[in-house]
């Protein structure tokens, strides 16, 4: 179990600047998830930590030791690949013990550790099979087993669940959370699935275009996003965004009028910097913050109503044809094509300036 620190880390392929000035500290034993849209550099950053990609500039330390120029095998990391990368011509046992053969671990010790990991992952009966004879979930567990056997200080997971079907993905997610609890090892986990990020992480690092957008605990990112991108990225269904214009600024209070929507003006209290009169802002409201009754009301027409049983999603439109999603615990009375009123409390609204930065 080791802490990990990235300082001012950059990655360039010739002209292309892929990773920009990453500063990040991951505590020992922490479960850290890198999340972001495709091409944001999260996998590249993980591969740089593993040593599979060079660090163009900046420094990487694992357990306080500088690691920039250390061989991947000697960094004390083990990686679980998206494709599992199991050696197809070796049995499960050989796959799991492969790494130990190179640091001259005695055969009995290799066997003991493989058996131990197999027991933890319920692979006992499969040790003499080849990967071809395993199901996707079993292969996944072998890949994790191969990492566990090496007793790494840091586990690296590169989108490990993306090749599994939905049900298995949920099971493995729980499994990985359980493993983290049992082993207590530092984990860095890359995913584009924000549900995985929210459920597994102690700390989420949201990346976009090679830069860190925000770092924080899952609920911090959800409840207190720094900018429009984080607000839109974390949470499913996505946060609703409405354009608004500043009508009046008095002291720390700002009065807003929603554009393109028939709604009464409303006021919000801010602690930080204030916008000016006439500024165009964005108001963000989470789907579950909308309900039929509340302080600020907007008129909508329902498009589609999805009843999931315990909850319902109402996909509706404003008069300006902007889509708004509402999440209600019970919406059995709603029908498609109906005119409805959605309302929210000002305290549940988020305010962003024209540059997308949060106004608190």
């Amino acid at each position, binding site marked *: 179990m080791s802490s990990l620190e990235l300082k001012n880390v950059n990655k360039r392929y010739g002209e292309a600047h892929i990773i920009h000035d990453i500063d990040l500290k991951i505590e020992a034993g922490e479960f850290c998830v890198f999340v972001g849209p495709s091409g944001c550099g999260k996998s590249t950053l993980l591969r740089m930590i593993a040593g599979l990609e060079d660090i163009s500039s900046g420094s990487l330390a694992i357990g306080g030791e500088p690691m920039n120029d250390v061989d*991947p095998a000697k960094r004390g990391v083990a990686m679980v690949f998206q494709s599992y990368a199991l*050696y*197809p011509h070796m049995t499960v046992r050989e796959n799991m013990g492969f790494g130990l053969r190179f640091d001259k671990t005695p055969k009995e010790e290799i066997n003991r550790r493989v058996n131990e990991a197999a027991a933890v992952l319920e692979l006992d009966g499969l040790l003499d099979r080849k990967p071809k004879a395993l199901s996707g979930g079993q292969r996944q567990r072998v890949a994790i087993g191969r990492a566990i056997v090496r007793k790494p200080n840091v586990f690296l997971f590169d989108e490990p669940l993306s090749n599994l079907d939905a049900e298995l993905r949920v099971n493995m997610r729980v499994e990985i959370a359980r493993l983290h609890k049992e082993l207590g090892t530092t984990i860095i986990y890359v995913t584009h699935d924000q549900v995985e990020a929210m459920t597994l992480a102690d700390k989420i690092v949201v990346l976009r275009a090679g830069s860190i957008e925000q770092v924080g605990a899952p609920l911090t990112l959800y409840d207190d996003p720094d900018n429009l991108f984080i607000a839109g990225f974390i949470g499913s269904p996505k946060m609703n965004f409405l354009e608004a214009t500043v009508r009046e600024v008095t002291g720390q209070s700002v009065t807003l009028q929603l554009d393109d929507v028939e709604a009464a003006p409303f006021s919000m209290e801010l602690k930080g910097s204030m916008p000016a009169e006439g500024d165009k802002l964005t108001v963000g409201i989470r789907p579950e913050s909308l309900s039929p009754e509340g302080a600020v009301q907007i008129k909508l027409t329902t498009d589609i109503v999805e009843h999931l049983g315990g909850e319902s999603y109402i996909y509706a439109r404003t008069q300006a044809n902007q889509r708004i999603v509402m999440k209600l615990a019970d919406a059995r009375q709603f029908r498609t094509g109906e005119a409805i009123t959605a309302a929210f409390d000002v305290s549940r609204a988020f305010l962003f300036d024209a540059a997308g930065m949060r106004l608190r």
Partner: protein
Amino acid sequence: MTGRSADKSVNADKGSGLFGNRLRRKEALTGYLFILPALIGLIAFFAFPTIRAAQISLTNWNLMRPAHWIGFDNYGKLWADGKFWDSMQITLLYVIYNIPLQTALGLIIAVLADRLAKSVLFRAVIIAPYLISNVVAGLVWLLMLDPLIGLTNAFLTGIGIPPQSFLSSPDQALISVAGISIWRHVGFTALLFYAGLQSIPRDLYEAARLDGASESAMFRMITLPLLRPVMVFVLVTSVVGSFQVFDVIAVTTQGGPANSTRAVLWYIYENAFQFSRMGYASAMSMVLFVFLILVTLLQMRLLRADSSDLG
């Protein structure tokens, strides 16, 4: 099985069986039409000559007089023919000179091409010798290896090595012929290995790097085992091809000097077209044919040709 036959009877009851059968027959006919061109070639150039040779091998046909049935006399004669066994031995030696070096060189070139030079030009240069015929390759090297006017000796003298006799020395002729064959075939072998290397997922090497495997360990423990299907193909085709070495010998040494390159195919050719012993030559061809089938089966068995670990 029972489920299947039950399905059939249900179809027949509905009266669709007849239609189904006709459709299936029509489909089969289309299928045969597709393989017909290849089938004609196979029958005309492989099956028919093989059967005909087997037939001739049981006669004393000499191109002049009509063939007489002599049973297995030719095979008896062959068994006692020291020159035949001598030519088999020469061929075997040729295979031993040829195959390991050609395979190893091909593999090295393929790995280098894969790791260092992913350029089309490099691959094109490597494959170039394969694009000229054996006869031309033989003629080119006949000149290159000429002890007096050849470039090879000029080069060797240039770097301080005494000139060699190559094709005109009984000790060096067979090795020289093998060298010519390696020069011509190594690019093709390399290309096959190169294609095989492309089918090995890159992340296996990354996983192995993280596992602490050195480059040589990765080659031994990942590349080689996963290249097995390509290896089978390369070895089977090149071993069979080497046993059939003929054209390079025909244009360079003609079995000489002192019969040192009289490989089995050359000996068969001598018997057939110089001594007009068609029956005897056919008998030797049949023995070689059966021998090569056995060698191929053995190779495929040893190399587990029927299974690949990849996908």
